[in-house]
């Protein structure tokens, strides 16, 4: 008897006639970590879901394959057998902790359900067990959190509760499907550390599904690299990272955003400046909606963005980065001085702002949400021109759209298609083209790369750097991903709870961070090292 726990042989998954997973085999020993790596659409999640037969049958089918778990073929097993395995021997945690917890159940009920189902624990015995589990996954003051609902927990805490649920029955195998993708970098590092500690304590095997090679390097013993439903490379993590054989693996490894921006040039013309910028959201209570206090999203921020330079704003979610950007563009109400090219714009009404919109543009995070699904690419990109240059005729607009699309590396022949026909990276390029078509001086980039695959991120960063050089653009670059910021920003502001924690030239901050918060942020983001206490849980 070897200690092979999970043995997937020749597995295929088909949706209708489309083969999503194509004759894939891998195996996992007890107590080991195997990482399935690949970009979105490579079939890694589908492979993992078929282990527990959680795919939408009969839309999905398995033309071939066997999945042995402890010598039992799961693909052949009936529903009753599968239910005994699910949640007890094999458990899963998912990417989005908000939607994988039932919003109407308290923490106690969520975890208690599993304990009752598989171990028959109830009442006080169950409660003690739940508190023990919560403490194990690092929830502070666990006994007071039992009655909390998912919305009262932070993202990291929710993921911890998910892990507690997964561990409740001491599984042999934990499948983690992009467990940290939706979390802040600082929280990500903590969760990864937790998973690693727990794995050692329980001696369970971990099947990790991720697109982030940094995580794989940090966590995995074995790696399988997937591309378009096939495993193109496999082996021990160390050897794969040291000597990648397949071209695709090499491409993935090379895909991290690289390059450095030129050093900060403090003599360049000031494009946008703020003095004591404040965005306070009132908290209203009672029948007459009396204001009883404020949430200080941004509290007294000074910043300067210079022509041809990038100012990076980093911080955890909720630190006020995006709010700052929206306030500068006057898309939300704010107090304090905002200057564009020496002109005060903070008192401007929307009519007065309209001519300035041409010069101040924005690219948002989600390339799926930021393009109107019912307009063609041409209509999307030319929309601003229709407003800002009403004298332009259709042919001139088309010409300008063509130039903008060429500049972002898209084929102008595709301009009559609709957004849903493009990939995430292409959509982000369309969003950039929409901003460029107006020939702006200043672009606010709100996490423009965080919804994209790693290799696409690098391309977008290169594109942005090229465009900046060509048009002498001023960027306000907002991100939680310090790798991307390092590749783009000349100057940097670290924000925390609405105030500036640290500021200065980017290279200086990266090489010699001053405050403990910045240190923790950099350690978590670049080395996946968790420094607890100072950052959010």
């Amino acid at each position: 008897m070897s200690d092979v726990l999970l043995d997937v042989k020749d597995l295929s998954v088909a949706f209708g006639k489309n083969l999503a997973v194509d004759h894939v085999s891998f195996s996992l020993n007890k107590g080991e970590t195997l990482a399935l790596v690949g970009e979105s659409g490579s079939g890694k999640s589908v492979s993992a879901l078929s282990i527990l037969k959680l795919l939408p049958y009969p839309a999905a089918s398995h033309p071939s394959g066997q999945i042995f778990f402890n010598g039992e073929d799961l693909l052949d097993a009936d529903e009753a057998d599968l239910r005994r395995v699910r949640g007890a021997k094999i458990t899963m945690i998912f990417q989005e902790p908000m939607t994988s917890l039932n919003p109407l159940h308290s923490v106690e009920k969520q975890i208690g359900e599993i304990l009752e189902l598989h171990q028959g624990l109830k009442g006080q015995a169950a409660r003690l067990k739940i508190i023990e589990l919560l403490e194990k996954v690092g929830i502070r003051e666990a006994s007071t959190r039992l009655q909390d609902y998912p919305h009262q927990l932070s993202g990291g805490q929710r993921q911890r509760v998910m892990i507690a649920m997964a561990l409740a029955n001491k599984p042999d195998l934990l499948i983690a499907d992009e467990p940290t993708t939706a979390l802040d970098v600082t929280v990500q590092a903590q969760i990864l550390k937790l998973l690693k500690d727990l794995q050692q304590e329980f001696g369970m095997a971990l099947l990790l599904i991720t697109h982030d090679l940094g995580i794989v390097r940090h966590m995995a013993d074995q790696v399988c690299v997937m591309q378009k439903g096939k495993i193109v490379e496999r082996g021990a993590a160390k050897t794969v990272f040291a000597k990648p054989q397949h071209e695709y693996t090499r491409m993935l490894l090379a895909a991290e955003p690289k390059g450095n921006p030129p050093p900060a040039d403090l003599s360049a013309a000031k494009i946008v400046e703020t003095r004591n910028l404040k965005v306070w959201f009132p908290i209203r209570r009672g029948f007459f909606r009396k204001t009883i206090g404020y949430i200080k999203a941004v509290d007294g921020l000074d910043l300067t963005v210079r022509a041809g330079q990038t100012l990076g704003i980093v911080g955890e979610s909720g630190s006020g980065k995006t709010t700052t950007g929206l306030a500068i563009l006057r898309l939300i109400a704010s107090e304090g001085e905002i200057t564009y090219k020496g002109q005060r714009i903070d008192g401007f009404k929307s009519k007065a702002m309209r001519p300035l919109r041409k010069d101040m543009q924005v690219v948002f995070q989600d390339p799926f949400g930021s393009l109107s699904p019912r307009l063609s690419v041409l209509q999307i990109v030319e929309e601003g021109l229709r407003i800002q240059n009403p004298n332009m005729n259709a042919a001139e607009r088309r010409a300008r759209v063509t130039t903008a699309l060429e500049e972002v590396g898209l084929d102008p022949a595709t301009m009559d298609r609709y957004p849903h026909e493009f990939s995430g990276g292409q959509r982000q390029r369309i969003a950039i083209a929409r901003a460029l078509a107006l020939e702006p001086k200043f672009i606010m980039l709100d996490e423009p790369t965080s919804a994209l695959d790693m290799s696409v991120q690098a391309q977008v960063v290169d594109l942005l750097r090229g465009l900046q050089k060509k048009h002498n653009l001023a960027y306000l670059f907002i991100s939680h991903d310090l790798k991307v910021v390092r590749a783009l920003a000349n100057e940097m502001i670290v924000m925390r709870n609405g105030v500036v924690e640290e500021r200065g030239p980017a290279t200086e901050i990266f090489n010699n961070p001053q405050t403990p918060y910045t240190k923790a942020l950099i350690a978590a983001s670049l080395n996946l090292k968790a420094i607890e206490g100072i950052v959010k849980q």
Partner: protein
Amino acid sequence: MIFKLNALNQRRWTLFRANRRGFWSFWIFTLLFLISLFAPLIANDKPILVGYKGEVLFPTLVNYPEAKFGGFLAETNYRDPVNLEEIAANGWMLWPPIHYSYNTTNTELPLPAPSPPASTLSADVACAKYPLKAADPQCSAGNMNWLGTDDQGRDVVARLIYGYRVSIAFGLILTIFSSIIGIAAGAVQGYYGGWTDLIFQRFIDIWSSMPTLYLLIIIAAFVTPTFWLLLSILVLFSWTGLVRLIRAEFLRARNFEYVRAARALGLSNGKIMFRHLLPNAMISAVTFMPFLIAGSVTTLTALDYLGFGLPPGSPSLGELVSQGKNNIQAPWLGFTIFILMSTLLTLLVFIGEAVRDALDPRKTFT
């Protein structure tokens, strides 16, 4: 260019067609409606064309005085045997398939009104009132009451065709008007939110709690309701139906990033609402529309049934329902209107289901 469908709409059309039941319902409904639009050419007490002394006349379009055919009345009764003989002697007549209009009283009823369908009677009984009985030239298919007559001797088939036309037209117009108002109101509420939304919502709460039926009864007491008057009163109260739906859609979509991006491009609120938000909200509105039409048709029928609907004598389905109820001894009335109403409403619901499927973005081809 209008009929060039983009990829999205092509997909929707394919999905709509894939729902066979809804697709067929759609065609049957359209066919029936088109037929009913030409009602005067199908069921009328005037011939479509008359050739008289070398002249071609169009009695359905032009009102010829009887003097033209040697009589003395201001309007020619083409069903009058004297006129029939006169025209037959000097030319020819092209009749519609049914020789009755919705308000024509059959003066040669074989049995007292409401008289039973011709198909249940032998030729001798059906033509008992004609001078030559079954051999009379007037004892033709066009002069038979195929579904019988109502209690005033009017042909049921003719009344059904005209009544169907009025009902559908009423339903369509009511739906269109109340949708326009409802969508506009919902859009404003959802987009601006806050106090606008709150005040509007409470207004709608109060407005929709007004007893529509009593208002109609009161109004019917001192004016005779006409088609358009009835329509306007019903629009006043039916526009609230779509508001909540559209409001929710706008409320959801107004903070989407593409709306923010549009604002950053300098678009005005009106443009953003029209170009970016409305197309998304229209999906839920269109999905609702067949059901709204069905609801409007039912409303009109109910009002007619109670006697507060269209003016007396107009062709209406509701009036036939009430005749069916009052003349239990003449079951053809009740059965006919039951079958017609249930078919019509079923067709509309089937169409609605198919539209809903077609517009469902999560629906996949199977």
